[in-house]
């Protein structure tokens, strides 16, 4: 199983591609197999991002090679197919995702300062 190269910094992988951000984010909720990832992404993008197998596994391969996700040995309760490969977020992957989100947040802040979008006071 590929591991992140020793001493690799999450910043080396930034910026992530939009699909990669989505995949990693979906995995924070639990382990998923490929089709499950697709459905999660479909739901969270209100039907706008519809991944097909090739596109999905291409990014899974990249993320796996970078050490951000790995095959999971566990099966979530009620898993629909035992034989399928489920993916889990690695600790390194979580750091990469956090770094990307921090990067995006600073962009959003900038946009708010420049009044491109209204600041969100939640």
């Amino acid at each position, binding site marked *: 199983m590929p591991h992140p190269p020793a001493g690799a910094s999450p910043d080396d992988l930034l910026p992530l591609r939009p699909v990669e951000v989505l995949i990693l984010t979906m995995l924070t909720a639990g382990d998923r197999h*490929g*089709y499950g990832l697709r459905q999660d992404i479909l739901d969270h993008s209100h039907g706008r991002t519809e991944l097909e*197998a090739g596109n*999905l*596994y291409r990014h899974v391969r990249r993320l796996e090679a970078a050490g951000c996700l790995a095959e999971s040995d566990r099966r979530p309760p009620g898993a629909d*197919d035992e034989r*399928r490969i489920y993916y889990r977020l690695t600790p390194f992957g979580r750091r990469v995702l956090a770094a990307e989100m921090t990067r995006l947040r600073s962009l959003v802040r900038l946009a708010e300062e420049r009044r491109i979008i209204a600041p969100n006071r939640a």
Partner: protein
Amino acid sequence: MKPRLGERVYRLLLLVYPGQFRRRYREEMLAFYRDRRAAAGTAPAARLRLWARLITDVFGTAAAEHGAGLRSRFRRSIRRERTMETLWQDLRLAIRGLLRAPVYTTIVLFTLALGIGATAAIFSVVHAVLLKPLPYRHADRIVVFWHSNSSGRTYNATSPPEYFDLKEQLRAFDAVVAIRGQSSTILGDGGEPERLSAYVVAPEIFDMLGAAPAQGRGFRADDGLPGAEKVILISDALWRRRFGADPAILSRKVNIGGFIRTIIGVMPPGVSFPDVPVGFLRDRADFWIPSNYESLRSDSRGNQFIAVLARQKPGASELAAQADLDLVSGRLRAAFPGRYGEETVKGWRFTSVSLRDQMVGSVRPALYVLAGAVGLVLLIACVNVANLMLARGALRQRDVAVRLALGADRPRLVRQLLTESTVLSLAGGTLGVLLASIGVPLLLRLDRGNIPRMDGTELSSAVLAFSLGVSLLTGLLVGVAPALAQSRTDLRGALGEGARGASDGRGRRRLRSALVAAQMAMALVILVGAGLLGRSFAALQRVEPGLDPGGVLSIKLSLPRARYDSSFKITAFFDRLAAEVARIPGVTSASAINPLPLGGEGWSGSIEVEGMVVRPGEPEPHAEYSVAMPGYFRTLGIPLRAGREFSATDVAKAPLVGIIDERLAQKYWPGESPIGKRFKGGDDWTTIVGVAGHVHRAGPAEAGEGQIYMPLAQYTQSAMAVVLHTDGDPGALAGALRGTVRALDADLPTSQIVTMDDLVVRATARQRFNVLMLGVFALVALGLASVGLYGVMSFLVTQRTREIGIRIALGGKPGDVRRMVIRESLVISVSGLLAGGAISLSLSRVVRGLLFGVTATDPPTYLFISALLLLVGAIAAYGPARRATRVDPLVALRSDGQ
């Protein structure tokens, strides 16, 4: 369990990925595919869309993966050099080999270009019409409401009270809007007066559809309230055409039908809702007028003139939506049994049709048939190319054998041969796309705006990606069999037999014959389809439309209500216009009618027949309505079976009179003369004074219902089509007709002039398009298949030169030899025809809906096409057969087969 066909195809598709990627993810991707297929459902449209997406996805990402692989190899430089070098070497070898055989290369390229080009052209149409998203973000959730009942009659015209019921009671929808057409004249902006197509819409319509103006603002909720500023949104097309794309268009005021309105926005290009006919909303919009419809709130549920659209809540299923509609329908049935109850209409309820089905549902079957046909043409072309490659392979067998003997490895050999076929198919694909770029404008011209959304056809990136995918697939398809066959060359056989001429193995000969038989089968399928459509079209041409279109010219006019505000003014205008038109030199008679036959408009309603009792549950008498002026039947050449035409004495104050057609007469007054009998369309009894011939008002394919004509003077309408008849060329009188209208009222738009002959052609334009397209494909298929058969028969004869030589040397007669060759070709043809016949019969369900006047299993068509193919097969075999008889035994026995 054996996987399904789709899964096997997908598994094959996965072969285009790099080996490492494939080994790692294949099983996962197949599982993914199975879930995807299960979720997409079995509807053919959904299947088609799924496969279009899958193919694009596989080829797009496989290319990217190969690219990524190459890049990573680039870093590992030693290995890179070797791989790149082999690839480069293979390419060079392939191109050099192809250039050395220019005739072969040209034939293959031409064949592939034809197949791929036709496929790309039809795919570009299918993509534009069926696959490309509608220009509305929420299109997939939009539905149109229809009234339906168990008698099968459906209509989507709805009354305002029904609209408010739907708007206030539906729960599974988050927006319900009304829309109605209102053609209006625009003037006072410096240009010619012009009749434009406008729609009065609920202000939230574009928010619901998901489209925002490109300039200015959209409608707000308070637009269209009484007292608010009168505003309109205009279409991009109108902005460009009428206002020269004026950048200062916003807040400009225009006179629309006598009212001053302010332009507040321009919609983006491509948005002209309803862009294609949606139910009874026919014309694409030039502009939109906001209204909240409150002023139309009333109790008159019979006054149905608006269309209602709605948006399903996100995530709401179709079932839930229909359940919701059924709930409202049930309440209405209970509240108004006299209007919706079982006693009046059996099984009345509201149903919904998705916007996409509404817009393109009617052309889907024809496009599927065309797409299937073009796919078969491509397959036939592939078979020809594969056969050519097999032949070339046989010639090169010794060359290959020598290389194998010298230690070339087989995978390398297969790869090189595949490189060659891929180079060919990519070059052929490029030529094909060029052909398609010439063909698509021709297609558009041929269609003349008949197929909805077809004007958006273009060689878009999706079409290019599809063509690339098809080309690569073609390369694999035509290359795999010959490549495997060649690499399996038996060394001893090839080298040993070489001195005596390499002859094809028995298995390979059988493969080749099977391929040609398959070709014959596919050609039969296309030819039968084309034959059936051709016979339908001929049957349509033979239909008597009930009128004589020759020499008739028409102009549609719509008098603005602001100036023509009384029945008297309207009647007086049309009376005078008809009289003036009749005075134009060359005009033999003139009159007016609405709706114009074949003009695309309809009007029908229920009537009450005097003395006839309608039992509960039975349909009420129903008829098509028209309003006509005196002289109409004479002008259009419609025969009068009994009674009289309308005359100048049928004025407003005279007793109400009507003319019916023979169909209505037979239905409600069978066996008696209807003259003098009475019926009721509105409040008063109308007396029948004449019986006319029946007219196919909606085109030859539809006989239509019985018809009623009423005189304009008694049933005044501001929109009429003025018609004239001349013994000369009606088109030549267009200028004079226009001038006559302008002389009476210079503010009337006069653009809608058309000859009746043109309308007749337009009424069958869609059938003409189908038959022409399928006819062309059938000819190409026939040509390719006969060339294929000829090629294979020649080849078989050449291969068996020695055998034939021996036969002749042993006393065989030339006639016997000829018969033997022809018999062999007949075996191939007949087995192909039998298979093709079986396939055609099983596909007959698909074309049934496109036929008119013939059945999908029409025996004459099948027999004729089979005979034609047999004849073509015999001709294709005759040349090689004759050559076989001229074989000189001495030469044959000595020949080394080259």
